[in-house]
């Protein structure tokens, strides 16, 4: 299988994530979409590491995973707090700040 296909896959995953953020209302799902995008980037890193025959990309992938984990911690904390205040996880409900 041509290595370029991994890149295409990465792009597709990233696109799905990006679109998901725009179309989904549930904040958890939106958040998962962002994680998907991060992982798409990871995939791209790893693929490029392969293409470039060096390890830097793979190292990056590990870093990314750690960072993503941190993000989950912070993100869920925020989402949960909001859910407790509002009894809703819909991102559309949080739209008091505008104009």
């Amino acid at each position: 299988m041509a290595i370029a296909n991994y890149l295409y896959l990465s792009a597709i995953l990233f696109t799905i994530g990006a679109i998901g953020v725009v179309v989904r209302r549930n904040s958890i799902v939106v958040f998962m979409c962002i994680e998907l995008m991060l992982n798409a980037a990871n995939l791209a890193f790893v693929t490029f590491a392969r293409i470039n025959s060096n390890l830097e990309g793979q190292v990056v992938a590990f870093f990314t995973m750690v960072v993503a984990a941190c993000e989950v911690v912070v993100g869920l904390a925020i989402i949960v707090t909001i859910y407790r205040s509002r009894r809703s996880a819909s991102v559309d409900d949080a739209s008091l700040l505008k104009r």
Partner: protein
Amino acid sequence: MLQTSANLAWLIALPLFSSAILLLIGKRANSWGHVMACIVSASTFTIGLVEFFAMQSRSAENRAVTQKLFTWISVGSLNVDAALLLDQLSICFVLLITGVGTLIHIYSIAYMSLDLDRRRFFAYLNLFIAAMLLLVLGDSYLNLYVGWEGVGLASYLLIGFWNQKPAYATAAKKAFVANRVGDAGLSLAIMIAFATFGDVSFSGIKEQTELASTTQLTAIGLMLLLAACGKSAQFPLQSWLGDAMAGPTPVSALIHAATMVTAGVYLITRSNFIFDAAPTAQLMVVIVGGITLLFGAIIGTAKDDIKKALAASTMSQIGYMILATGLGPIGYAFAIMHLLTHGFFKASMFLGAGSVMHGMKDEVNMRRYGGIGKFMPITALTFGLAYLAIIGVPPFAGFYSKDKIIETAFNAGGSKGLLLGITTLLGAMITAFYMTRVVLLTFFGNERWGHKDEPAESPALMLIPIGLLSVGSVVSGFFLARGEALVHWLEPVVNPLKEHHSGEFLSPIIVSLLTLTAVIIGISIAVNKYRSAQADLAPEKVSILTTAARKDLFQDSINEAAFMRPGQSLVGRLLKIDYLVIDGLVRAVGSVSLTAANKLRTLQNGYVRSYALMMVIGALALIAVIWSVTA
């Protein structure tokens, strides 16, 4: 190099300081202000006389004297000194202004004795004397211009002396504005002269006249004519003079008869070197003079207000002078001669009219007069002498001066000469008619004033000046014309003898006879019409011509239709445009920004998802842009 004299500045400084003192000190000077003003005026007359005799004692070429006061404006090649020039021409004016002026000062003491603001009146009179002397003494157009506008200011102040009456205030404003149109002409003339010659002094321009093209000289000449029209109430800027009679009568006598209004004649005579080389401008001068002399005369026939009738007459007489100045070198001297004699008889008549008004409780309507002669004999007598002078009965002053103009007009040559001659002749006839009308309505016929108080003769303080002036109206013409005294006197200034008597069309005798005939016709018509007529009321059914004359030949209507109303509507429109269009554009910038802001704000709708969408679109747009730029 001209001789210098240290006295000239005093001519102007004395009345100017006197005026300033009277205005600054205020009421405290009420008791002695008029005396000081008279003394100052008399002193200027004395200085004038001293200078005159000094001048006479010198040879013709050395008579002119100058005095440089200080450097006034000096920028680049423009160097204008505040400098005075007293030559044969200006001394005539100096004597006229200070002489008649002094008499009128004296007259005014009595005439204005009941007015609370008499001091202010004398301040204005002194101011006028100063400005008028500056006008005739300035050695350059720019210095002349200062006096030119100065007399305009004095005239404005004096016409509006009783400005608590709105109509009088309006008359004053009208006079100033009409004069300003003329002034604009004068300033343009100065600009053109400077651009052409690099100089604005009389002598500097005179030296270089031959170098300039006819076009340049014509342009200057026409602009000078415009100036003269404004100041001398010539067509088409004549309309202010009638209204100017709002001023106290001595003012009408001094400013609006004897001196200021003749400044146009002075200007053209002074600029003889320009007009002599600019035939088109000269022709225009003649045309303007001709139109105005008839215009004024016709208006004069229909006026019931004695002062306005006299004002119309003034306009007409100045028309004669202007016409004369347009007739080439010989005309200047005759114009000045008529100017001087006119100064005497018209001032005398105005003061006489003032005397009548004084006796008639300020009534000016001649239809309310009648038979005043027997109550005010001296006034009537002096008025009568001046009357004879103006209509040109020999040997009174007007005969010498007017005849010469008519003669010169006939001699202008060809059809032009004939036309001008007939015009002046016609003018003489109408003059005789309306002046006779004035005399008859005022001093003869039945008493129509409709109240019991009989008019009393005026005090001596008024009668003496009138008397002196009427003496002048009798004899001045003879002295000036004797042996062509004035013509020779002015020769160094205007070079009149070069073409004198060159092509004689009609001999002087014939002209005199023609004129006398015209005058007699005029008198007879008037006598016929007004001898026994019940003149209480102005007749209702009159010819179109009379109606037109009563309405000043529609001069005000035309001005209103042509300038005032379009001007007003322009102003109204500009006010709207300024607000709606120009400021509107500025405000539009503001409202567009506000609208844009409100529109753009809606992008910020509060939804995270749409924010994210914007980011995606932004990212895609960036890629698209780079792609299209690089590929």
